[in-house]
């Protein structure tokens, strides 16, 4: 029992320590090297963020709507795709599976470079839509994968039971499948959102500096070693991501906690 407590406390501190450092840095004025704590506190980081011309808020809005849309579209595509691959046999199934996974087997940078040329051709480069599409190529392999596992684990028996109880396909999805895949929805949207939310290179490449997301604002500060502003931005970053998670969790709430199915 005691060992258990020590263990969970250790885990807790391991998780929380980086946050404490971030919070400290974001309120630092000067922090001489080698000191345990900053010698002077200040609000430079937060002032920068709150300044109207800093573009932080605008980029946050772009980031949230971009990643939100990516998450939603990913889920809408992955649910039927996952079900099809998990439950049905069709010609070229293994090819489809490989193609879906391809973007994360090949480094995303290479994929992005290749797609960039086509996007320029079709006028998708430097646009929100283009960035959305390139994010989808990275997130879809993950979300489809998740739903393949979710549907494989649930099996076809629930669907069959629904059919013998005279439920049509939509009723089966609405009243049965939806509840079975809820845990997968939560896990899937968290993963997809975060992959998209922290995407730097592909946004930069395809967005061409026209689509400014939060990571694009954050990176230069990390690069140039301005830890104060970088830390404040990181906190904003983490908070918005957490905020999204809470909303997702609430939307897909499992009131009874009845689903015995698989957080994957």
């Amino acid at each position, binding site marked *: 029992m005691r060992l258990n407590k020590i263990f969970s406390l250790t885990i807790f501190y391991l998780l929380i320590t980086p946050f404490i450092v971030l919070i400290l840095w974001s309120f630092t004025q000067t922090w001489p090297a080698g000191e345990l704590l900053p010698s002077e506190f200040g609000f430079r980081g937060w002032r920068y963020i709150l300044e109207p011309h800093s573009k932080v808020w605008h980029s946050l809005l772009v980031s949230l709507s971009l990643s939100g849309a990516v998450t939603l579209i990913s889920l809408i595509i992955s649910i039927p795709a996952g079900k099809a691959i998990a439950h049905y046999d069709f010609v070229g199934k293994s090819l489809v599976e490989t193609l879906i996974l391809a973007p994360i087997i090949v480094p995303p940078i290479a994929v992005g470079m290749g797609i960039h040329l086509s996007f320029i051709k079709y006028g998708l480069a430097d646009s929100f839509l283009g960035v959305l599409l390139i994010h989808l190529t990275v997130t879809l392999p993950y979300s489809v994968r998740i739903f393949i596992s979710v549907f494989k684990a649930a099996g076809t*028996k*629930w669907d*069959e*039971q629904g*059919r*013998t*109880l*005279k*439920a*049509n396909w939509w*009723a089966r999805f609405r*009243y*049965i499948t939806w*509840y079975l895949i809820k845990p997968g929805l939560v896990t899937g949207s968290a993963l997809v959102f975060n992959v998209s939310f922290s995407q730097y290179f592909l946004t930069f490449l395809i967005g061409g500096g026209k689509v400014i997301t939060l990571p694009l604002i954050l990176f230069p500060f990390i690069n140039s070693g301005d830890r104060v502003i970088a830390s404040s931005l990181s906190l904003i970053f983490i908070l918005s991501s957490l905020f999204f998670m809470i909303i997702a969790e609430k939307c897909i709430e*499992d009131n*009874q906690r*009845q*689903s*015995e199915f698989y957080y994957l």
Partner: protein
Amino acid sequence: MPYIQIQKLSKLYKGQVVIDHISLCVNHGEFVVLVGPSGCGKTTTLKLLAGLIEPDSGSITIDGQNVTNLSAEKRDVVMVFQDNLLFPHITVAQNIGFGLKMKGVKEDKIKAKVQEMLSLIQLEGMEERYPDQLSGGQRQRVALARALALEPKVLLLDEPLSSLDPALRCDMRDFILEIHKTLDMTTICVTHDCEEALHMADKIAAMFEGSIVQYAVPQEIYYRPLSGKVAHLFGRYNILECPLFDGTLLQKCKVLTEAQALTCETVVYVRPESIWITKTPTKDALIGKVLRTIFIGEKRIVCFSYNDKELVAYSWGRQEYKAGDKLFFNIRWEDCLGKSGEEDENISGCAHI
């Protein structure tokens, strides 16, 4: 006209024959049990009947209507699966009313039907519970009620009792039979438990490798199995050559091996209880020597030798046989020769196919 008529139904799965030209007729109100080893195609047959999978050839007629190509949603057939599959996120009442809701029945009618079902399964007052707040037996009863609420023409049960513990299983058997009779249902049930099959069935269909090998009433299939495989399904047996001469039975006994049985035309499968053993000589008795006995509760299994071949019989009561003892036995041929070896002409039970 039989109520359910399955004609030459076949199903291939990945090029392999799973169901091989099955024909079967079931009358209205009958309780038919499909029994066989796992993988013999019992559940597939049930799913074909439910419309969950489509046959590659053959036809199914229910109540005069050809339903072969009718999808499960439109068929008047409901299937109860092995592990109840109650929807975990809705209450007992919502589970029972699910099918009616899908059919678009009005709310107040659903409510009335749910109440009726709850009293039928003796779970009044449980309507607001969730499935995980019920015991295994209660869940199975709710699953049954959910199916029955739709008042299907045919009820299909896929190993409905296998997830229950043995004590509960017996109660549930009686319960299912009672409901079957009360509602005048036509029921087809799948099981691999021979005792369950004998207990519940009006007729039993023994399935092996995608075919129905024998279809008969329980007594018939138990005492007069058509093959060693069917005999094996329902417990211990002896393989003997039938000593029928000029219409009179001679008290003779020739024990056969499984291999010999395949070529012998007058083979009979004799249940251990059809061999009458005593310690004292009786009329026409044959003499054997006890090899070993096994105590299994209400009876003992007595294995004895006769002409160097082994036979098995039961000893009831307290008479003890010890290895090496001499025993006398008579075979009650009448048990196994009701139809004097004359085979049922068609296995399907259909008169005119």
